[in-house]
């Protein structure tokens, strides 16, 4: 992928809050990062996890708890949430990578349901209410993330936005680097032909586990940021709907492409927000769009575009 695409993404990201409602934009970034992290596993390692909400939501609870009850600064809260997701990813991954295909998906789903149950019942998660009113706090104890600037007559929470944007760029860069690293080459080999990768002497379980941990950690980072943006960690974040949503985003945008999950997350989130007035019919509408897209663009938007341009995006 060439430099101009990178520069374009950064410039768009920097200017976005002056055009689009910042909270909406931050939601996009969080889910885009979540989808990118998920795609590292599905698109580049060939593992379909159906429990990624456990990492996203789990981290969002941990960050919420650390910031609200322990009074930590937001960057430490995000770090804590990310590390928690990495650890959880190590545990879930260790158990799940022993199985393949649909069984792998089922094991991840089952373990994610356990996390959901813990979030529902544990004393520090707020049960059905979740953790509400999570303070945004001061970054490094200095910069107030809750501060809103008045520009053109309307308040803009730019501090928080740029914090989220920088974290998004960091996460996205880690994923991009991982894909285009010696490690990423081995992951692609495993996706393409696992027995052959084994016969070349690669211990594929270790590679899969490391990929799983990286993916879980970054999904967790996305969830941590989300809890700061919405000041809320809720059961929705850990539910299997969220696990399904991220699969949807990735498939829509194009699995195994760098930009696909971004496009997919933007599409799904925008549709959800634009169609929120139609009520419960929204799932039917999004479902139909999904079916049509999958039939028309089997490789996803970005995948089809990449095929037309004969290059990987």
């Amino acid at each position: 992928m060439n430099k101009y695409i990178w520069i374009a993404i950064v410039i768009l990201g920097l200017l976005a809050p002056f055009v689009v409602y910042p909270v909406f934009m931050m939601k996009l970034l969080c889910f885009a990062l979540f989808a990118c992290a998920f795609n590292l596993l599905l698109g580049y390692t060939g593992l379909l996890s159906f429990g990624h909400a456990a990492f996203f939501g789990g981290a969002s609870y941990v960050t919420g708890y650390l910031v609200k009850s322990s009074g930590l600064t937001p960057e430490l809260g995000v770090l804590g949430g990310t590390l928690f997701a990495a650890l959880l990813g190590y545990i879930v991954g260790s158990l799940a990578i022993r199985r393949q295909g649909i069984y792998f998906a089922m094991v991840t789903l089952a373990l994610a349901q356990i996390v959901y149950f813990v979030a529902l019942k544990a004393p520090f998660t707020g049960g059905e209410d979740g953790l509400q009113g999570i303070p945004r706090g001061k970054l490094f104890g200095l910069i107030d993330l809750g501060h809103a600037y008045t520009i053109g007559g309307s308040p803009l929470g730019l501090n928080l936005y740029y914090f989220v944007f920088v974290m998004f760029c960091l996460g996205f860069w880690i994923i991009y680097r991982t894909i285009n690293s010696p490690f990423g080459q081995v992951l692609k080999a495993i996706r393409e032909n696992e027995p052959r990768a084994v016969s070349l002497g690669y211990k594929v379980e270790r590679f899969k586990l490391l990929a799983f941990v990286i993916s879980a950690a970054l999904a967790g980072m996305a969830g941590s940021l989300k809890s700061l943006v919405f000041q809320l960690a809720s059961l929705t974040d850990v539910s299997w709907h969220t696990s399904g949503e991220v699969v949807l985003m990735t498939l829509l945008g194009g699995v195994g492409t760098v930009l696909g999950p971004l496009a997919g997350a933007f599409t799904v989130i925008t549709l959800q927000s634009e169609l929120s007035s139609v009520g419960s019919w929204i799932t039917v509408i999004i479902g139909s769009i999904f079916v049509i897209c999958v039939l028309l663009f089997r490789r996803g938007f970005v995948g089809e575009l990449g095929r037309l341009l004969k290059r990987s995006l």
Partner: protein
Amino acid sequence: MTDHILVTKNLSKEFKGFTAVSAVNLQIQRGHIHALIGPNGAGKTTVFNLLTKFHTPTSGSIHFNGADITRAKPADIALRGIVRSFQISAVFPNLTPLENVRLALQRKLGISYHFWKSAKILNQLDGRAMELLDAVGLAEYSGEITAELAYGRKRALEIATTLALDPELMLLDEPTQGMGVEDVDKITALVKQVSTNRTILMVEHNLKVVATLADRITVLQRGAILAEGTYTEVSQDSQVLEAYMGSSHD
């Protein structure tokens, strides 16, 4: 005393009561091209999978260079110097031939877990990878997508990838299967060419290929060894003739 690189002792494998391989004693001499032949269902591929640890033997043992590798894992034996090919072509289809070969070379750099490094670091392997591709006549296709290559070329790529690991013992599972006549000749010449300084054990249906290449042949039937010797010896063995004549009736 002859130097045996690979020895199996009473190697057996049962699948739910069906004995696929029974008490096979193989002795592969270092530097030989050793062929494993036999009618369909004789257990050749099962023996292969046992040797490369894709199956675990029910009983018996496998020794490589004197070390017992009966319980080793598939990736471990690759590290010891045994590399196998597969009956269906074993390539990474959506990568280029260059990337395929580099993946085999990459392991020795010891950076395969380094997810924070740029893949550009692998460019140092391009020279060696191109040499290997050139050796199998694929240099001009190095940048194509492997999935789009002709079948014979995929098999050649597979051999180049296997060679990249510089294995002491190469296990080839039907290297010429499904190939046209010209390709068979090419692969035969290639196997001969790469056999210098290494040992090759191959499963092969094509008796012409076996006659041209093999220093020693083991004939399997119903999971057990029927005969062993040079091509001339084996081809005159009455039991072998019967097994092959018998199988040609159905």
